[in-house]
């Protein structure tokens, strides 16, 4: 008899966790992991593997957990995924591996993400398994950007014996994993651990290195790199373009989260970077970044935190789990609501003027287009606003590489499989190519590009 429900993971209670930045889900014990692993049917077709953008041998690692071979389990995962502790926490498993799980047709799917996280955390408490590295090939690859795409490409190329240097323009490696995703969802110590594992493999990481300015892509290739991979992400915050958006107290989600996560503004003045959270915080947007911002606001001491989103709950792009956590914590959802102006007082925002919306005909994205309800204008009193409506491509590499082909949206034009760009030896992947997407999709792109780079270097 198979348990119909997945083994739950213990969590910090909502009323406790809104006062701290500690991680919300607490992880599986060994027994809980074994119990959950036992629910896996070990079906021959293993649709979960195809559902994983990096193709982890999911039945294989789950079987090892069931047999209490935890070291073997993490080894199996790491053959395909350099960042398991990250993926186990932030992947949208419900639409990937778990979304196609055979068990899921009748019962709750196997909690693959939780099991992956368990293995990665188990490894952190035990002897670290460093993947075998091939003998040096003598080929050098430059990776620009140390986010999920760049780190994955770096790990894959290093394993194959290439000399890999990762260039990061901020003062720490990790990209969005460090500046964007909050501590309570992805502890920074865990990101550092995964990056240290890459360093142990021999990946060189240079921070504060502004590629494009200190050396262009062409200069890197001229100065001895055989190939370059661009994974500089979607770092340019988008704004609504409505009146009052430059008032004090109106933050981009990037700024709000960077101050908090990267610069640790929640520990001000012990740390030097301040943040102003205010009493009533309105976050505009419905994705994971919006949930992260609204939940961060509460932890910074906001009395009330609102999500304002122009479509309905069904269209919220955030993961269900994030919406669930946000609701548990008391985030107030103003759905079918669109901000049209920010009102200020002495230069600081004091309210958001909104319109109620209703859903009309489907638009280009296939989702029903929100249309304003006439005469529905109202104000939400607010002293801090966070704009979380998405990010455009990071501008530096396109700006400093004029012959690099771009898409009409300003992303780098790259082959969907190999990541090859119009420039010889230059590859790109992740959000800089696709526009803002998920950590694991960026990792998949990094991995595919690494394979293509390897093939080209060895041929």
């Amino acid at each position, binding site marked *: 008899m198979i348990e119909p429900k997945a083994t739950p993971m213990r969590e910090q209670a909502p009323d406790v966790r809104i006062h701290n930045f500690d991680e919300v889900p607490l992880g599986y014990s060994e027994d809980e992991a074994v119990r959950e692993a036992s629910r896996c049917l070990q079906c021959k077709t293993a649709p979960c593997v195809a559902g994983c953008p990096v193709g982890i041998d999911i039945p294989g690692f789950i079987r090892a957990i069931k047999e209490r071979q935890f070291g073997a389990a993490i080894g199996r995962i790491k053959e395909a995924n350099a960042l398991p502790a990250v993926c186990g926490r932030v992947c949208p498993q419900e639409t990937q591996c778990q979304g196609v799980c055979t068990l899921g047709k009748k019962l709750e799917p196997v909690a693959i993400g939780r099991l992956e996280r368990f293995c990665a955390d188990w490894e952190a408490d035990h002897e670290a398994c460093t993947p075998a590295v091939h003998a040096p090939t003598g080929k050098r690859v430059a990776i620009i950007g140390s986010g999920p795409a760049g780190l994955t490409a770096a790990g894959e190329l290093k394993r194959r014996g290439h000399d890999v240097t990762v260039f990061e323009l901020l003062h720490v490696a990790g990209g969005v994993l460090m500046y964007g995703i909050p501590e309570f969802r992805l502890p920074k110590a865990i990101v550092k651990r995964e990056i240290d594992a890459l360093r142990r493999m021999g990946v060189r990481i240079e921070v*504060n290195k502004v590629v494009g300015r200190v050396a262009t892509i062409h200069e890197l290739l001229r100065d001895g790199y055989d190939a370059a991979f661009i994974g500089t992400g979607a770092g340019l915050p988008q704004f609504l373009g409505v009146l009052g958006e430059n008032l004090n107290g109106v933050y*981009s989600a990037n*700024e709000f989260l*960077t101050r908090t996560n990267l610069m640790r503004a929640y520990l001000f003045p012990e740390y*030097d*970077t301040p943040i102003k959270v205010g009493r009533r915080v309105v976050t505009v947007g419905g994705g994971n970044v919006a949930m992260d911002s609204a939940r961060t606001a509460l932890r910074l001491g906001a009395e009330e935190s609102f999500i304002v989103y122009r479509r309905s709950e069904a269209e919220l792009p955030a993961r269900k789990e994030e919406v669930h956590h946000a609701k548990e914590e008391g985030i107030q959802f103003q759905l079918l609501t669109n901000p049209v102006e920010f009102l200020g007082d002495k*230069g600081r925002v004091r309210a958001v003027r909104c319109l109620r919306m209703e859903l009309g005909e489907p638009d280009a994205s296939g989702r029903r287009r929100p249309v304003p309800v006439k005469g529905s204008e109202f104000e939400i009193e607010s002293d801090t606003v966070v704009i979380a409506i998405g990010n455009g491509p*990071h501008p530096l590499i396109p700006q400093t590489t004029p012959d690099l082909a771009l898409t009409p949206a300003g992303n780098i034009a790259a082959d969907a499989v190999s990541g090859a760009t119009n420039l010889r030896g230059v590859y790109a992947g992740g959000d800089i190519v696709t526009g803002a997407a998920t950590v694991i999709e960026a990792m998949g792109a990094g991995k595919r590009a690494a394979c293509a780079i390897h093939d080209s270097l060895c041929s």
Partner: protein
Amino acid sequence: MHRILSKRTLGPKIREYVIEAPDVAKVGKAGQFVVLRLHERGERIPLTIVECDPQTGGVTLVVQEVGKSTQEMGDRFQEGDSVLDVAGPLGLPSEIERYGTVIGIGGGLGIAPLYPIARALKAAGNEVIGILGARSRDLLFYEDRLAAVCDELHVMTDDGTYGRKGFVSDALREILVSGRAIARVWAIGPAIMMKVCSGVTREFGVPTVVSLNSVMIDGTGMCGGCRVQVAGEAKFACVDGPEFDAHKVDFDLLMSRQRFYAEEEACAVEAYLAAQRREGETK
């Protein structure tokens, strides 16, 4: 880690540092800036590049001790010590061409970033008129350096303790009123000074460039905290600037955004000074 190759005092709470940052020193140009972080708990401080020496790898920066971090840098970071991070060069370089006769205005700390621009303009064959301004004699620095790269130098102090009494905008107006053909003006300094100078040159229709020092976090285009309104459009000072067409800048917005963290800055200074006092007592 980046070693401090030299440190000297230019005036009360104004210090010049030469910091080892070979990557930046190789390619840094007039108008660009670096982001510096003192230590693990430090904030990212944007500082305009004054001079780059590719031979020694030294980058010259002038720092005014106005907040906690800059004060800490002045108190605790000596020649031979190291700061944790220096990233750059960031921002777009100044557009240096042969314009004809140009005016370079540096007010207060703005004298430091003006120097490399004036030097580059001179090297490009321009006749360079320099106007330097400070509140008082002791706050004026780099007069000799500017004199070496300007064909003509005007020095103004608010209180008349040195040079002529008055503001840089007064000297600017006199030159424009005299009818001399001025092709372009650079004005760098406090936002209010840039606003006033911009108002003067607008009257005379002289193209004017200002360098905007809005509040920044990453300095690389990612946070949008440094956004300024230029010709009615939001621009990021870090990647679209820091230099902009002065006649299109919304200076009032800039000033309002610069003041947003005043309270926190004061609180940080207070906490720092209290810690300094405690340290002094235990010694």
